[in-house]
């Protein structure tokens, strides 16, 4: 194909995007759009799957059978969401095996928040409320992303995720209305999960490597900073209902802006965790590799059974 043809295709592609039409798997698309999407969707899928670990840590120690059943259902959902997203990325021509390899070798990233440890039961409350809360703000926005299969996966995920945040908040509510020790546990979890939750929206717009192009291609629909502000605005009244102290002394309503002001994030910590120096980076990947390797015999058995059936069929 000569460059003139490519220019025409690129123009037609951008016109389609500008008209708010979705791009579907068999459409022509710029190579960089495809690569950008594969990076973002696979990263999103990895986050769902790795995100099962910090919560899974409390499955055997949930305080009641009801809490255990709820947590189990939530962790199960996250695995399902990983699957929806991997399948959506596969429509772009990347294989599941390549994506898993990129995750395990450290080439692909996942949400850095899952590299923080879950130290107490209250962390399970804070994760559902804040981490899923932040994820939902981002995912609601992504329901309008320009790539059809990704947008449809987001619709499905948002619908299923509505219970995740509510069950987390319910845990926080019980603890904050409990005894002194329980209230302290809730406060401690809020203090530790607040900042990493704000970091989930990524760097400031000015420092975001992929933002401008992703916005023009409507892969992303709202900027990191706008989404972060939206999350802060919705979360502060929820802290008030819990009667907990603000985790940030600079958090206060700004009448002029019509938004809450908040303190600056610790970006050194953000980049350190992304680079691999969080509390649990190594553990998360080691566990993923171990689970993957321990599942080998199941995959082998499936293949052997399939071969046996085919042989019998042929005979």
């Amino acid at each position, binding site marked *: 194909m000569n460059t003139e043809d490519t220019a025409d295709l690129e123009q037609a592609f951008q016109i389609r995007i500008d008209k708010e*039409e979705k791009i579907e798997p068999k459409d022509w698309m710029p190579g960089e759009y495809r690569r950008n999407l594969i990076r973002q969707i696979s990263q999103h899928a990895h986050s769902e799957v790795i995100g099962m670990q910090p919560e899974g840590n409390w499955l055997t120690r949930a305080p009641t059978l009801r809490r255990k059943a709820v947590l189990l259902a939530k962790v199960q959902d996250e695995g399902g969401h990983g699957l929806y997203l991997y399948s959506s990325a596969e429509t772009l021509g990347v294989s599941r095996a390549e994506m898993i390899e990129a995750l395990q070798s450290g080439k692909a990233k996942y949400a850095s928040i899952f590299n923080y440890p879950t130290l107490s039961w209250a962390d399970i409350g804070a994760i559902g409320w804040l981490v899923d809360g932040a994820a939902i703000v981002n995912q609601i926005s992504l329901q309008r992303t320009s790539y059809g299969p990704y*947008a*449809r996966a987001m619709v499905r995920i948002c619908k299923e995720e509505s*219970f995740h945040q*509510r069950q987390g*908040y*319910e845990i926080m*509510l019980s603890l904050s209305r409990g005894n002194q020790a329980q209230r302290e546990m809730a406060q401690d979890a809020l203090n530790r999960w607040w900042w990493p939750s704000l970091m989930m929206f990524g760097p400031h717009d000015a420092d975001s490597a992929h933002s401008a192009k992703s916005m023009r291609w409507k892969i992303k629909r709202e900027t990191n900073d706008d989404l972060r502000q939206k999350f802060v605005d919705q979360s502060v009244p*929820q802290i008030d209902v819990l009667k907990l102290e603000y985790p940030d002394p600079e958090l206060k309503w700004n009448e002029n802006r019509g938004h809450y002001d908040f303190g600056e994030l610790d970006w050194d910590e953000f980049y350190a965790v992304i680079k691999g120096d969080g509390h649990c980076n190594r553990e998360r990947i080691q566990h993923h590799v171990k689970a993957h390797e321990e599942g080998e015999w199941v995959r082998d058995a499936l293949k052997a059974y399939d071969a046996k059936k085919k042989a019998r069929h042929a005979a």
Partner: protein
Amino acid sequence: MSTEKLELFEVFIRSKRGLDHRHVGSLHAEDHQQALEYARDCYTRRSEGVSLWVVKSADIVASQEDDAESFYDPMDDKPYRHATYYQLPKEVDNM
């Protein structure tokens, strides 16, 4: 040529970009290409879609509704998978 010898294909239409393909019906055809053209002639005479899928009916594996009770058990006794299960104060109930 008897139509009984022809393969049965199921037809799916994407009515608009961004939406899933939806099953609309089936038809007989010699092969995939012919099925696609027949589907165009039969199912999109009024511009019902922007994209068609044809799939050999024999390639579809379906669960049986009669087995639904045991097949889907025990999904029904997990009300906590629904958002409405959690009672929250009204100030935060829009969560």
